[in-house]
């Protein structure tokens, strides 16, 4: 598979906009899947408002690069070139999903695209990039590994353990903190005394910057600088400032947020900003609308696709606990039957 990696020449604003728009459209459809009672559960975390982080950073990555994401990782994976049908099917818990319905929204992964996995543990995916960095160094394949996580994950000690190792070993690793200002109901200034998060990375000896997520080109530029640096042995940290447009998960209406703050936060819309810039530079609204319409149609189809898919077969639950060469765990029912059939 040769995915549409938005790398190199593909990173002009038009492409960045298009990819962000796809993320936005997909996430809206995730919300709809839930409303239609077709999602597997309600733990759906939309990345609306943070598209520039996903798209800008992925634009700086190369095909051999790898990454881990957090629970709000749909956008990142889409930006990397995921198949939205297989993503949506996974979110619906269907057999046709990336993980055959075992993972769901918070555990999508795809080795083909270097996606080492989303994670439902805040901070849980971070140290893996240290290992991926060791692999890249060992194999000399020039791969960078990027850990994507939220501002809330800066509360987790494992981030600092991982940054320390990456800096010590000069690994090709980027720590990308998507700072949407909230961890569930907790605003960043209620979670830490110093909200200039990149200063921590500096203190561990990494290159580190904070960039305004409103401007996807700025994000892409900063990401390129830091990813290239990481590839050359200067591990880095990038905080992308943005705003979580909606609730933490699908059911959360953010009653803990000031509506005025929300209004202002939603002004920091990287998609709208890029669109305005494109119009400034001569693109017509009609052309953009046409593109948007195409995207929305593609994303609408993911819902129909998902609804049409089957649930994984019950017996599949015993699969993949261990390698396929190994025996599957004995089902409880079988065990009980065996024990009681003894006589």
């Amino acid at each position, binding site marked *: 598979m040769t995915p549409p990696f938005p790398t190199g020449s593909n990173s002009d604003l038009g492409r960045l906009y298009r990819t962000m728009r796809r993320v936005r459209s997909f996430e809206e459809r995730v919300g709809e899947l839930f409303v239609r009672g077709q999602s*597997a*559960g*309600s*733990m759906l975390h939309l990345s609306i408002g943070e598209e520039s982080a996903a798209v800008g950073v992925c634009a700086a990555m190369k095909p051999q690069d790898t990454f881990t994401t957090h629970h709000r990782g749909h956008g990142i994976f889409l930006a990397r070139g995921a198949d939205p049908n297989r993503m949506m099917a996974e979110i619906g*818990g*269907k057999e046709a999903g990336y993980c055959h*319905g*075992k*993972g*769901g*929204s*918070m*555990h999508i992964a795809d080795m083909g695209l270097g996606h080492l996995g989303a*994670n*439902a*543990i*805040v*901070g*849980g995916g971070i140290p893996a990039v240290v290992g991926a960095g060791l692999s890249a160094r060992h194999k000399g394949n020039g791969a960078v590994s990027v850990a994507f996580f939220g501002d*809330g*994950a*800066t*509360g*987790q*000690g494992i981030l600092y353990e991982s940054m320390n190792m990456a800096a010590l070993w000069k690994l090709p690793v980027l720590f990308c903190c998507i700072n949407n200002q909230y*961890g*569930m*109901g*907790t605003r960043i200034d*209620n*979670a*830490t005394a110093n909200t200039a998060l990149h200063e921590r990375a500096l203190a561990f000896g990494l290159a580190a910057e904070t960039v305004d997520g409103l401007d996807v080109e700025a994000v892409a530029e900063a990401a390129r600088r830091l990813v290239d640096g990481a590839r050359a042995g200067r591990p880095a940290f990038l905080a992308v400032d943005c705003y979580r447009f909606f609730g933490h998960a699908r059911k959360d209406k953010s009653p*803990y947020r000031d509506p005025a703050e929300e209004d202002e936060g939603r002004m920091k819309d990287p998609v709208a900003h890029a669109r305005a810039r494109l119009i400034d530079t001569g693109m017509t609204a009609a052309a953009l609308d046409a593109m948007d319409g195409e995207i929305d149609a593609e994303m609408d189809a993911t819902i129909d696709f998902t609804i049409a898919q089957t*649930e*994984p077969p*019950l017996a*599949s*639950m*015993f699969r993949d*606990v261990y390698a396929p060469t190994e025996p599957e*765990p*004995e*089902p*409880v*029912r079988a*065990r*009980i*039957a065996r*024990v*009681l059939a003894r006589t």
Partner: protein
Amino acid sequence: MVEMTYREALRQALADAMTENPDIILLGEEVGRYGGAYGVTRDLIKEFGAHRVIDTPISEAAIVGAAVGAAMTGLRPVAELMYVDFIGMTMDQLANQAAKIRYMFGGQIGVPMVLRTQGGTGRSAGAQHSQSLEAYVMHTPGLRLAMPATVADAYHLLRQAMTCPDPVVFIEHKALYTMKEDVDLAAEPLPWGKAAVRRAGDDLVIVTYSRQVHHAMAAAATLAAQGIEATVIDLRTLNPLDFDTIRPFVERAGRAMVVSEGVMTAGVGAELSARITEECFDFLHDPVVRVAGEDIPISVSPALEAGSVPGPALIAETALRMLA
């Protein structure tokens, strides 16, 4: 008698205890402004203030560690771990510190803290948000372990936990929060550490706890319709483990089933099975049968999720097999 939910009973227990004892503080992720991920601490911050209902950063290890330090210096912290699945990050503070401090320091001081958390399946929350990890706790000397199944126990066990001189891990079940029952909160509760006989019957004994109590009761009702009378014992606390309540029922029935939602291998059911066998061997017609979670992770797919843990059907079916 008043009707309330499990969630409300837990909240009431916290509120009542905090009113009585000014040294009780709550700390954890989203326990304050947000009111708790499952709403148990809703508005307690308004009642008791941000100095007693403390929103923390997402730092599970330090939350437990801070509770240890608070407990050693005169507070009665009730820390919340949003999901028991996150216990992995706290196991050092829990098992090497909280559990061992009294012992290592020769009895100088205890660690009277409660770690409230919730576990179990039921929300398609996937492999890292649906586990039943009580066996890790039960295997750790020094930690008390309570797992309420009823609304009354949600209230009383939590009240009792908040007076326990030793660290208590208190595991709620996410599928029970909205369960409503009539309760008399003023009634004398069962003592801490005592199991409850939820139903008595002479054909077989089902020993269980937490949500599986309800599944066992449902199964027992099905069985009763077929003339089979099961005893259902709700352990309420796994440490202390009240074997005295179990023994006579097993001796009478000669058949015992143990049910847990956690995975079977090296789980709570193994301990219960071993213990019942040791104590009641000569009375057993059959080996103790373990009904438990499959030895696999939990899937997000609702079908696989439900299929991987015991339910009333499996319990009833197993009982019928035992009595066939």
